[in-house]
């Protein structure tokens, strides 16, 4: 019954969805560990993808970066740097996996809809219906320096462009009807419709026309993800996406977010199950909860070296602190207000709306627990979602899903490429035993795994 704790309803339990985020350019990935392998070699991707598929995950996810990050005007060298091209890796992974969904972030600012639609439709064909696109907007002229179109868009135009970009791409996906390819050797008719693929789209950002080159793909449209968290982003997701890559991995915030976006769906004639909420999550496992906590503390220290602590400190302080001792107290001077100049090419600098207030909170924390600069940074940047024994983590994940704080999680291990292995071997079987996670794939396409069937194809032309 709705309104009751659904976790108790045996046999009717809500199903958990799981995805695997390939580690790389971010500050959760640990590269200094002896087990850490290449982030570039295809063998790493093969290992990671096969683990995810063996564990019956819904999909693998690749993030994107189009400019190497900088700090103080120099290339940031403390985290993993460099990554391969999203489309190329996903298409290659289609050759070494059979069922695993293949999802990638592709931004809508430094691409054109025709090209991106063509690439995703191609990927969907080449993977027999396993492609997914996380639509994001880029936000800076810094990244634009690598592209023809250069420049950047004012904040208010980014979602407008992203929305129009996606709408245009959807029109292109829909420009071929199922069955347009007849390929009847006897009669000599290849195309059922002489105008297959015709499109014409004009709005404030795009003015394109012609014939789309890729016939309708197995999923019709690749699965669409959206990752923005603003009101406009949520509305965009409610209208157009199949899943949200959410940042709300904490239980109460997760429930609030979940309720909010699901509520928005009715406005677009959609049901709650038509849009999945999948927060990003990290995990640290141990034989016992205590051992997992010890490991987690060690992972945190690996993630935040002294040099990394200073770098993150500079992002808030907005000034050069290269001489500051990470093992000493926080700086005595206040952060510099104004436009950010220290770090470029990363989203995290926008987290600090009010630098002075944030600095005040950090100082209170340091005071209260007698923490060094590095320890404060370790504390405030903690993003470990699940820490515990396999039983604890399985229980927690299930709790989130049954209590509607999430439909599942996109898990980012710390270690490439084997960081998912332990989860696959220990947590997944427990979720399967509970009957909340598939023991085997039931369908072949990602839409089938996610239960987000294609929407009706609009009448063409």
């Amino acid at each position: 019954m709705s309104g009751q704790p659904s976790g108790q309803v045996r046999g009717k339990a809500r199903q958990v969805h799981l995805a695997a985020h390939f580690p790389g350019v971010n500050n959760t990935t640990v590269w200094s560990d002896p087990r850490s392998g290449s982030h570039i070699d295809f063998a790493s991707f093969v290992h990671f993808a096969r683990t995810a598929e063996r564990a019956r995950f819904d999909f693998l996810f690749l993030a994107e970066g189009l400019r190497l990050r900088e700090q103080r005007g120099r290339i940031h060298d403390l985290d993993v740097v460099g990554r391969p091209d999203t489309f190329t890796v996903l298409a290659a992974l289609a050759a070494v996996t059979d069922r695993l969904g293949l999802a990638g972030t592709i931004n809508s600012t430094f691409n054109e809809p025709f090209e991106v639609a063509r690439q995703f439709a191609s990927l969907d064909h080449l993977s027999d219906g396993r492609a997914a696109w996380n639509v994001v907007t880029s936000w800076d002229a810094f990244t634009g320096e690598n592209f023809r179109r250069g420049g950047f868009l004012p904040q208010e135009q980014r979602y407008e462009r992203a929305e129009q970009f996606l709408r245009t791409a959807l029109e292109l996906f829909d420009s071929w009807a199922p069955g347009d390819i007849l390929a009847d050797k006897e009669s000599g008719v290849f195309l059922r419709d002489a105008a297959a693929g015709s499109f014409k789209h004009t709005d404030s950002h795009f003015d394109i026309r012609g014939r789309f080159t890729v016939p309708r793909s197995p999923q019709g449209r690749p699965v669409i993800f959206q990752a923005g968290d603003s009101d406009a982003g949520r509305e965009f997701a409610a209208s157009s996406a199949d899943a949200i890559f959410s940042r709300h991995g904490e239980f109460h915030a997760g429930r609030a977010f979940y309720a909010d976006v699901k509520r928005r769906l009715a406005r677009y004639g959609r049901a709650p199950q038509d849009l999945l909420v999948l927060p990003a999550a990290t995990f640290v496992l141990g034989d016992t909860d205590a051992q997992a906590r010890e490991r987690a503390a060690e992972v945190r220290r690996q993630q935040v070296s002294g040099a990394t602590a200073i770098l993150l400190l500079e992002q808030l302080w907005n000034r050069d602190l290269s001489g500051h001792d990470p093992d000493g107290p926080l700086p005595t001077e206040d952060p510099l207000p104004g436009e950010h100049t220290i770090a470029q090419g990363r989203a995290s600098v926008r987290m600090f709306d009010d630098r002075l207030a944030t600095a005040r909170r950090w100082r209170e924390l340091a005071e209260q627990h007698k923490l060094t600069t590095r320890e404060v940074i370790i504390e405030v940047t903690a993003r470990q979602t699940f820490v515990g024994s396999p039983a604890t983590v399985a229980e927690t994940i299930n709790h989130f899903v049954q209590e509607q704080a999430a439909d599942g999680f996109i898990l980012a291990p710390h270690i490439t490429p084997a960081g998912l292995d332990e989860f696959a071997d220990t947590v997944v079987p427990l979720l399967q035993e509970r009957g909340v996670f598939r023991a085997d794939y039931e369908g072949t396409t990602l839409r089938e795994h996610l239960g987000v069937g294609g929407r009706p194809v609009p009448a063409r032309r």
Partner: protein
Amino acid sequence: MTAPGTTPQPVPQPLPQSAAQPAEQRESVPGGRGLGLAVALDGCGWHPAAWREAEARPGELFSGRYWTELVGEAEHGRLDFVTIEDTLALQSSRFDGPDERVDEVRGRLDAVLIAARVAPRTRGIGIVPTAVVTHTEPFHLSKAIATLDHVSSGRAGVRVRVAGSPADAAHFGRRDVPVPPASPGALPAEFVADLFDEAGDYVEVVRRLWDSWEDDAEIRDVATGRFIDREKLHYIDFAGRWFSVRGPSIVPRPPQGQPLVTALAHADLPYRFAARSADLVHVTPSDAADAARIVAEVRAAWQAAGRPAADARVFADLVVFLDDDPGRAVARRERLDERSGRRRPYRSDARIFVGTPAGLADLIEQWSGLGIDGFQLRPAVLPTDLVAITRGLAPELRRRGLFRAEYSADTLRGTLGLGLPANRYAVAAT
């Protein structure tokens, strides 16, 4: 041993001494190179009616399996590489826009993604997708091909082409192009010159980005917490008429350093573009005399671009209808022409060869002696003519001591006798 289904070959003509040795031996000679053999894959084959042939698989054109099997067959023949055709506009019998035909193959997948899909399923063959360098972003293409090179362990290339038609431009809507002429030949000269000039800048950016990471940039120095030595990453700071690109790439240097760049060229302007930008040029001689003339022009263009003329790899394109019975090859071509629904027989920019694998081997042998380094064959029908190449032509060339029995290099550049290029940004060791 005779491969099944091949006709008895005529007595080989005397060969230049170096070419008469077995291919493997010649390849081990420093600076030596054997005959190159490549195949251009397009849809169900190059003849517009190919898809109606009994062996054609038009229903599988959009599957990974189809392309994997074709490239696997080419690899079975130990060919140097395959190219995969691509265009931004839908196939059309007209230059100035889409046509209304329903009796020919329409629709295709992105060639770079096909290449990536095939790479993990092959071991030795080079994979060279076509990419359009008009309208698209050099940064994206550079990282895609660098990644293809990582995924294939050094077997990637890219065949670059310009897109001058209004249909291509209308898919992007970001620039005006001249009023649609009926053929590419009718485009204004200045517009065409700009297309190739832009393409030259484009490939320059692609190549600089490939070099923007030195090979040993990743250091993982736990003591200082540094993952990379950022002194070994380089801004490329390209500023030109069409775009500016800052760099560095997001992808570490590909295994080959510089994946192979190829271009199809029919005239002086594209020869000069190829000489500036490519490692290998596909040309379309109509006969032996034409082949000799083109080779001379291409090598002169190379020299004019400040590159050693001998570095140019010149591959001749041929459309092929092959059969052990020459009469059957001719009949097949006639049948396809009749079925095509076009008023005129199929024509191509490349010479059309109709005959036996042994006859084709004769032609190859003759043109090889004129300075043609290799041949890129366009199978009229897939897989029919591809199989005739791998199971008929390749063994025939092998019997004549002209073609390799096994790959002798791990990379495509190695297969073609091209060395690993130095990184333009690396400072010479002191």
